[in-house]
């Protein structure tokens, strides 16, 4: 550091005794701060910024990884917007997102409310248990759920059979596969969301709940008029994060259709946008087209992030 200081600070005049002026020390401190944060930004430039810019670049080419790269301008994008597979993937993504987010957030709300109850015994045990699904690997979850939902040997179809319902082919049908994937997402994330809500709820003074109870508010009224309003900011936060996560869902659909994983079934019934991107980029090796899908996905994430910004500023204004 001294060397840096010496070269970067102007030589102090002989009349002023302190060799390292306060100004010089400040500069050194300022620089050292940049040195401390540099590793992240260097890595970000290499692993974030460069691939990001490169994706935009590749999207303008007909890019064969082992052959020629031909500049074709916006052709990949016109092709994409005319491609029914793209719209199919977009539709599947939205459908799976909706089926997973709505029940997940509702379930988490109710669970958080119950876990926050004053007279709950073993509360810590129940709260920690919520995290178990979250720490389970996605692959393990997918394998177990695919077996539970299996057409011929699945537990679920066996139960349905007991009440006389014909076996459902969850993986091969559109709604079935969406339901299956959504169930996996809910299972994995509801505990995490519950704990977020619970943490926020615990900042609400217990006296508020007690006062409401004394005034004659039942559990439902306390839930509606205290729990939900006090959670509003964090609810919006979870809606936004799960939307972004939902747009990028990849592993679950990849793993459930073991025979045709990249299309997630014979008619792409559960192929999501990221899976479509991966199929084109790394299955068909159409790098240019895959990159174009990546750019489209980026645009969608930016729009969602903008909505996030608008909503969060609105909340601030409310207070």
């Amino acid at each position, binding site marked *: 550091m001294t060397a840096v200081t010496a070269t970067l600070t102007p030589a102090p005049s002989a009349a002023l005794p302190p060799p390292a002026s306060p100004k010089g020390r400040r500069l050194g401190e300022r620089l050292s701060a940049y040195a401390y944060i540099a590793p992240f930004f260097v890595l970000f430039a290499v692993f974030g910024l460069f691939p990001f810019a490169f994706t935009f670049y590749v999207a303008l080419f007909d890019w064969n*990884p082992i052959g020629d790269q031909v500049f074709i301008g916006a052709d990949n994008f016109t092709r994409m917007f005319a491609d029914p597979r793209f719209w199919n993937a977009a539709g599947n993504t939205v459908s799976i997102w909706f089926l997973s987010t709505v029940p997940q957030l509702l379930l988490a709300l109710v669970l958080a409310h119950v876990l926050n109850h004053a007279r709950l015994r073993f509360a810590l045990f129940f709260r920690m248990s919520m995290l178990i699904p979250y720490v389970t690997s996605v692959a393990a979850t997918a394998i177990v759920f695919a077996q539970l939902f299996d057409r011929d040997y699945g537990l679920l179809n066996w139960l349905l059979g007991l009440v006389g319902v014909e076996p459902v082919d969850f993986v091969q049908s559109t709604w079935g596969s969406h339901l299956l994937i959504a169930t996996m997402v809910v299972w994995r994330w509801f505990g995490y969301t519950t704990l977020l809500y619970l943490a926020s709820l615990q900042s609400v003074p217990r006296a508020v709940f007690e006062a409401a109870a004394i005034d004659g508010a039942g559990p439902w009224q306390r839930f509606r008029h205290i729990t939900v309003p006090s959670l509003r900011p964090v609810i919006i936060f979870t809606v936004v994060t799960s939307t972004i996560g939902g747009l990028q869902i990849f592993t679950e659909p990849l793993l459930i259709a073991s025979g045709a994983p990249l299309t997630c079934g014979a008619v792409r019934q559960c192929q999501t*946008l990221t899976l479509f991107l991966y199929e084109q980029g790394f299955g068909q090796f159409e790098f240019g087209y895959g990159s174009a899908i990546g750019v489209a996905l980026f645009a969608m994430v930016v729009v969602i992030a903008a909505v996030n910004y608008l909503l969060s500023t609105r909340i601030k204004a409310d207070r």
Partner: protein
Amino acid sequence: MTFRPPLLLLAAAFALATACTPGGGGGGGGGDDKTFDFWSFSAINQKLTVDAYQAKHPDIQIKLTEVGTSTETAQSLTTALAGGKVPDLVLIQGDNLPQFVEQPQNFVDLRTLGADDIKGDYLDWVWKQSVAKGGEVLGVPTDVGGMAVAYRTDLFAAAGLPTDRESVSALWPTWDAFIETGKRYKQATGKAFTDNAATSVFYQAVNQVSEKYYSEDRKLVYADNPQVKAAFDLGIKAATAGITAGQSSFESAWSAGMAQGQYAAVSAPSWMLNSIRSTAPDTKGKWDIATIPGGSGNWGGSYLAIPKRAKNPQAAWNYIKEMQSPQGQLEHFTRVGALPSTPSVYQDAGLVDAKDPFFTDAPTGKIYTDSLLGLKPFYIGPDSAAIGQEFLNAITNVEQSGGNPDTAWDDAVRNIKTAIGE
């Protein structure tokens, strides 16, 4: 909140970035000629052949990697060629070969190592598929996929059907007769006759044509080719006849069904025998092999190729020359049952008299070489695999997801046009 999608392309970006680095892995500097890397697909037991080679050449070290399925192996190879570490030797499945033949600059032209000298040993039409536009020879054929039908003698007996292979073969001179047999079986037992319509009927039938998805002069004809349409219609007919179990080949439920005896008959190109054997080892002796409806054809087969940046192409070539010689392929046949691509051994007693105890001593060598007689070779093009997959998906959709059989053909053709961008 992180920005994921383009990160997926990060890997690609990096692979490409390193590809531009001159001398990356090339040059062969420092590599001794006693060791080489070999990429194969799993489940076809290349290890036996590698072990046999090493037993003869104890000074040679082969690092065999079983990458995954044939498709996964081709994908890994593409990524490696685009900038990663390439193997010295790689096994490429026939359907994946054309995309590499289109880009010959990525491979060693085997003529420089002496391919012209051994060319005459191989089936001419098989050899030609690995020859690029400029005449470069990219691969040496390892095996071909003669076709047949494997069936369960015990299940046939239970359904009141004949069980010896001549009578069973006589049950289905045509694919229509095969489907009718399936209906008889279903009526007698109430159970599914075959695993699925897509591979067991359509893929078999579509590989018996004289012209498939491309014409002889390499133009796309899949949509107007009556032979393809006829095979597709057979697939749809089998899918709607209620004789299939609706289990897509090679999925885990398919394997479970195989082990539990849910299929009385399955398509059995020669390489499938090994798959049946390893999927359902407990069914040994319950199978037999009958001829394929509709006459001769070929499905599958593989090639050995040497990437351009291989460190030790000579050692890889020595392996190819020895193990893929007519004698080497005959020995490989006795080890794993893959049918040789070298016609000079087709009359050899080792092949003609070979009997497979797993399949009730069926004379597999004779059955499969007979199925290649009178075969009319067709050209396999760069998009053949993608086209076949879309046709297969369309039939699976009718069979398993309640798709409309009347619009299946048009849907498939439309999907293919989107998929290959034509």
